């Protein structure tokens, strides 16, 4: 049964209601197609036009001839495999570090009652108030010369991985989920002789699959989409992720090749979205109503 919304089912059942509904429906479909799908179509087909055709005015809606050379040139000339691989390494590492360290810390804060736990949690939540981008310069200086050990993480994937762990939002998400897990299950495990690590691994984590999924997606998307931070960390062209490389190379490359590279750079995240869309959309919707 669907709950009623602004319009009552009775209004929609009337002939006039039906006519208006289908007009609006068609209008929205056309609007969505033009506003969201057409730009993507324009990008994908633009990369297949010849350099002359893409500069032509008025433009052709469908390429006169389908060239795949834009894509192959982008792949080779812009060293896309290398930059894509860099991005994968950076995203996967950030994901792994975040999953291990944030989960462990959230578990400790939720269940192990560390001394000063409240204070630490307060300090972590306070970073939510300090938007990340505003602190990007002092963070850069810290990464360039770590205190005490005086090591630089610049041009090193660790410069992405470790700062990614300091993600208060994901940690809080995990902690809140752990808080809701029933206490007696964990106590039962302990009484049966399981240590803290064993309890975390075989009791807590299997029960936390949904939240781990959400955190994983957030972690991967954040690194893949980020631009300013990797721009600062990787001055070395060979180590740059695809987002930084695209902007750096966009100045002096043929338009069709650049557009092809843009399409290739978008494929992984869009593909992931299409595969997990049900979970991602449900996650966004659920996260919002509960604050």
């Amino acid at each position: 049964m669907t709950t009623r919304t602004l319009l009552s089912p009775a209004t929609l059942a009337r002939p006039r209601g039906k006519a208006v509904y289908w007009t609006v429906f068609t209008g929205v479909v056309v609007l969505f197609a033009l506003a969201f799908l057409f730009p993507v179509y324009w990008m994908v087909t633009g990369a297949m036009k010849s350099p002359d055709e893409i500069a032509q005015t008025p433009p052709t809606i469908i390429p006169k001839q389908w060239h795949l050379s834009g894509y192959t040139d982008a792949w080779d000339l812009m060293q896309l495999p290398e930059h894509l691989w860099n991005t994968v390494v950076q995203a996967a590492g950030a994901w792994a570090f975040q999953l291990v360290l944030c989960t462990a810390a959230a578990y400790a804060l939720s269940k192990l009652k560390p001394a000063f736990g409240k204070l630490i949690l307060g300090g972590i939540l306070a970073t939510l108030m300090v938007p990340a981008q505003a602190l990007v310069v002092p963070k850069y200086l810290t990464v360039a010369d770590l205190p005490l050990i005086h090591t630089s993480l610049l041009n090193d994937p660790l410069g992405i991985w470790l700062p990614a762990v300091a993600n208060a939002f994901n940690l809080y998400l995990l902690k809140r989920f752990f808080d809701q897990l029933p206490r007696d299950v964990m106590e039962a495990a302990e009484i049966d002789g399981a240590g803290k690590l064993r309890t975390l691994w075989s009791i807590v984590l299997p029960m936390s699959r949904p939240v781990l999924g959400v955190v994983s997606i957030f972690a991967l998307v954040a690194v893949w989409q980020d631009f300013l931070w990797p721009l600062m960390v990787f001055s070395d062209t060979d180590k740059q992720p695809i987002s930084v490389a695209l902007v750096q190379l966009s100045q002096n490359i043929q338009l069709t090749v650049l557009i092809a590279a843009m399409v290739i750079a978008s494929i992984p995240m869009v593909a992931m979205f299409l595969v997990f869309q049900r979970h991602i959309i449900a996650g966004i919707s659920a996260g919002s109503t509960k604050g």
Partner: protein
Amino acid sequence: MTRTATRSSVEPTAVRQVQAPPPAGGRGRRRLIDQARAYAFLIGGLICFALFSWYPAIRAVVIAFQKYTPGSSPEWVGTANFTQVWHDPEFAAAWRNTLVFTLLALLIGFAVPFVLALVLNELRHWKAFFRIVVYLPVMIPPVVTALLWKWFYDPGAGLANETLRFLHLPTSNWSNGTDTALISLVIVATWANLGGTVLIYLAALQSIPGELYEAAELDGASLLQRVRYVTVPQTRFVILMLMLLQIIATMQVFTEPFVITGGGPESATVTVLYLIYKYAFLYNDFGGACALSVMLLVLLGVFSAVYLRLTRSGEDDL
């Protein structure tokens, strides 16, 4: 054996007492071991937060009062960085652009998703299709979105002007005109981000009980009145939350101006974060960059505090 027997018959708190008989002295050691174990789990995350969140926040404030060049020892200069930044002609432009950008993004970037969500919530068909399509731009990397729109805004064969020509309308300079550059960037940001807002708002709309609409309709409320007196009050909290989140996000805008306009034309699209970037990496003036960061931080901190206060109180209501 005895343990399992006690577990089933006695309360969990009692079990713990049975399990750990408190001989004097042993209890303190036991607690120390527990604490060591808790901190073993906590330490990795703690170090990362200390290094990459807490320490930079303190450092921003410290460096804001120093002359700082990497490699040489810093020098205290009092408020010189602040006065110097203040007198930079781009300073006023950056703040004005950031505020105008935020305001426009709020007007356009809020009204459009709001209306879209209202309409989508009434549609009974193709629900999944609409949700996927509206969220698609969010999943395209922001850099690609920015480059894509830079190409659309191309004064020659760009899609934006071609569309205007097709409709026999006067063409525009878009991101290349001093007057139109900022609004062009707002359009990009809205296109790229509205999917998230629409989805969140849709979820909020679905939580409105249908009886409220029914009662309003029985009382003779028209469609617009139902929106005004049922929908808006019922989702007020989410609206406010999304607005604040959007303010915080757009005040930190960087990718669009950096990629599309490079801050130009004539500083028309330099934002505060862009200026911070310029101070640090173009002028090599980290003191100035940190002074700017502190200013941005204070302002955003106020918005964030309001946001957190609101979400907290919202939780209590639920």
